[in-house]
């Protein structure tokens, strides 16, 4: 018994110490992100969902602290995975009430990253678990994986460039699970071309949205009415 | 001068029914040609064949010396017709109707004045701008006539033009026919099931029954004592007919639907015919000469309505 107790005690102590360690890292990342009060970004969005045929198009993204976020597409309609969290990176970190655990290290595109799991303290939080892959050297989140109660798991991969100093990515790729889509033919009065879309293609439940940012306008103030 | 209409062996079969059977007749220029027969005798079918509304199953029709089938358009340009009730577009005005049909009749654009003149002729000038649905039957009839005349045709074909008209309307049509013939020098073909209507206007007559020609000739001929119709009744008509067919009287026998034997001869020949029958020992019951077309018409066309018409 004794060796086991000692072992558990040791693990606990190391966990707590590393928790303090990673909490500090997350805080540092957050501090950096906090330098951005607001931004307007322009970019190009591509949607890749098996059952959506959407053209790539220009988007304009508005952000204002603490968590106002809006994506506008030219032409008007945007289809985004449910739950703005996945799009709004800093909202991942807005909540103070989480517990951070280290989950070792990993590699993303050749960069060594710390893997940190965040557990929200609030019991009714929609987010069950967030895993961050943080590039410690540059204090940048390279990847985030969020598991929610309602909307499955989202992955978000970021690439950085010109705006890395603000912690703002040049490119974000969201991956997410999708539910089935089916509208009864009676409602759509479908035109039968006789051609069935490849069934496996539609069965692919992974959706992807890619946004390439071309320009950020940071901390120049954003009117509240942009978020209406 | 070719005849205006020359019909040869014209036939029309509707499935099993022969409506017109080997009909031949000729209409000359200037004729008012009366076309007589019971309802269903084949008058309308014949007239519709002359107007290309019905396709014949046999025979030929020449109008103005041209074959009707191959020269349809040239012929119809010179023909005006009122077919039974002259129905026109009810939702158009009288003037619009006349203008519309003038246009289709292949004449150039007519001035409004000319069209009004046409309506004036039939006494409808004051109603030129009224919709036809407000017209009485007689007014429609007159409008029909105006439409038939608007393109100044050489030949006018009137199929039962007096159907459904009151006595005044009938008289109007009769006068109009005479006027067209005498003043405008038109050739008119007019059909009717009433002899009384026809005999006053027609100079030539054709009587048909069950699609067959019964008699054709000028009014003068048909009323002529030299063309007296003799009806013979015997104890055995079949035998008597056979005897007559074998005799020199054969050529005078007339087709008939009645049970009687009918011959056509000069009134003066009748005593000789008597003697001849006696010589052949034909058991004669009666021998009756009829000298009017009316009697003849009565005989070939049996039907209550005609009897009423004639006895009135």
């Amino acid at each position, binding site marked *: 018994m004794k060796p086991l107790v000692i072992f558990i005690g040791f693990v606990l102590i190391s966990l707590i110490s590393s928790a303090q360690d990673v909490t500090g890292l997350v805080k540092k990342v957050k501090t950096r992100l906090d330098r951005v009060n607001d931004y307007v970004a322009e970019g190009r969005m*591509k*949607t*890749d*969902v098996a*059952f*959506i*045929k*959407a*053209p*790539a198009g220009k988007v304009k993204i508005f952000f204002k602290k603490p968590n106002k976020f809006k*994506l506008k*597409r030219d*032409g*008007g*309609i*945007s*289809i*985004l*995975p*449910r*739950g703005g969290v996945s799009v709004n990176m800093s909202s991942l970190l807005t909540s103070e009430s989480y517990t951070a655990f280290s989950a070792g290290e990993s590699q993303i595109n050749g960069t060594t990253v710390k893997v940190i799991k965040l557990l929200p303290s609030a019991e009714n939080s929609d987010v069950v678990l967030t895993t961050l892959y943080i590039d410690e050297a540059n204090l940048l989140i390279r990847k985030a994986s969020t598991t929610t109660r309602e909307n499955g798991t989202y992955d978000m991969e970021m690439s950085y460039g010109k705006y890395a100093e603000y912690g703002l990515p040049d490119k974000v790729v969201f991956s997410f699970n999708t*539910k089935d*889509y*089916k*509208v*009864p*033919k009676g*409602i759509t*009065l*479908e*035109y039968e*071309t*006789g*051609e069935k879309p490849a069934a496996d293609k*539609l069965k692919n439940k992974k959706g992807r949205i890619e946004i390439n940012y071309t320009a950020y306008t940071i901390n120049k103030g954003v009117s509240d009415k942009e978020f209406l | 001068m070719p005849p205006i209409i020359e019909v040869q062996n014209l036939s029309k079969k509707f499935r099993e029914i022969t409506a017109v059977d080997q009909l031949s007749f000729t209409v000359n220029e200037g004729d008012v040609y009366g076309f007589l027969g019971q309802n269903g005798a084949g008058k309308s079918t014949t007239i*519709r064949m002359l*107007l*290309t*509304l*019905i*396709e014949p199953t046999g025979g030929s029709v020449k109008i103005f010396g041209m074959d009707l089938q191959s020269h349809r*358009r*040239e012929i*119809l*340009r010179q023909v005006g*017709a009122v*077919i*039974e009730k002259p*129905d026109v*577009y009810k*939702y158009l005005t009288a003037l*619009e109707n006349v203008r*519309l*049909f003038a*246009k*289709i*009749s*292949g004449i150039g654009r007519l001035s409004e004045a000319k069209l009004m003149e046409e309506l004036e002729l039939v006494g409808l000038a004051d109603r030129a701008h009224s919709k036809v649905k407000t017209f009485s039957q007689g007014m429609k009839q007159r409008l*029909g006539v105006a*439409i038939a005349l608007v393109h100044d045709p050489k030949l006018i074909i009137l199929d039962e033009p007096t159907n459904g008209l009151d006595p005044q309307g009938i008289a109007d049509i009769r006068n109009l026919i005479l006027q067209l013939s005498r003043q405008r020098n038109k050739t008119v073909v007019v059909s009717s099931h009433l002899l009384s209507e026809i005999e006053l206007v027609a100079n030539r007559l054709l009587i048909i029954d069950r699609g067959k020609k019964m008699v054709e000739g000028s009014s003068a001929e048909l009323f002529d004592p030299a063309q007296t119709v003799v009806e013979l009744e015997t104890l055995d008509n079949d035998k008597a007919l056979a005897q007559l067919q074998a005799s020199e009287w054969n050529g005078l026998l007339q087709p008939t639907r009645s049970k009687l034997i009918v011959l056509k001869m000069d009134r003066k020949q009748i005593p000789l015919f008597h003697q001849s029958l006696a010589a052949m020992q034909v058991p004669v019951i009666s021998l009756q000469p009829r000298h009017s077309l009316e009697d003849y018409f009565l005989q070939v066309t049996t039907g209550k309505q005609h009897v009423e018409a004639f006895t009135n």
Partner: protein
Amino acid sequence: MWKLLQIELFKIFKRPRTYISFAAITALVGIIQFGLKLDGTAYMEFMLRDLSMSFDIEGNILNAYLVCFIILQLLLVHVPLLISLIAGDLISGEANMGTLRLLLTKPISRTEVVFAKFLAATIYTLLLLLWMAILALFVSLLVFGSGDMLNLKSDYIVQLKSNDIMWRYIAAFGFAAIAMITVASLGFLLSMFAENSIGPIVATMSVIVVFTILSTLDIPIFNAIKPYLFTTHMIGWKGFFDVKVNADNEAIAGTVQNLGKVMQAAGILVLHIIGFLTASILVFRKKDVLS
């Protein structure tokens, strides 16, 4: 020929009946627009129910382009009824009125009459569609504004960029014109056989209704006969609202997913028109006018 066509058009547009269709279209389009303007959000929520489970859809979804699509979808099934009202009456109506015999004693060939009447019916059909386009598309643009269009198909969703839509509507109305002319030519053919206009009108409507039901019923035993029903091809205009995608599943502007099939459907309809028209000419040339 031109003269005859003028006369036929004159006759069509002098009749009150002609305007019933225009009034009906105006009323129906108006009602749909009014309903969508007032309660369109609920309708869209219903249509997007499945999608909303995974996605947030933002923007002016219920814009003129979608409204026009909804209107066409609802109305184009019924416009044939309005067209048969005129087409089924073309010959039979004149036979009934007694004007056919007068018309055909004129120095015009029967083939000319058929063509003039058919062309007049075609022009009527085109005007009706034009009127519908004005109301459903241009009035909607004023009322609902423009924007990208979401075409909710049963298996997937197509998002069309607003600058990639107008030409699709022009093509769609062109296709609809062919479809409606097919109906007109059927009504016209049937009108040869009757001496009152009710028969051919009802017969045309019945054919359309029965065929449309068979075309849209998703029951396997009917699927075999669907390709042979011209009504199946009449909704081919919808094909213009689907796009091709590239390897990245990115919609390519200016493309049509299955243009070949759409063109084939149009071709089948054109063949029907030619068939019905040829039959009409043959029947009419031989027809004995007894009315």
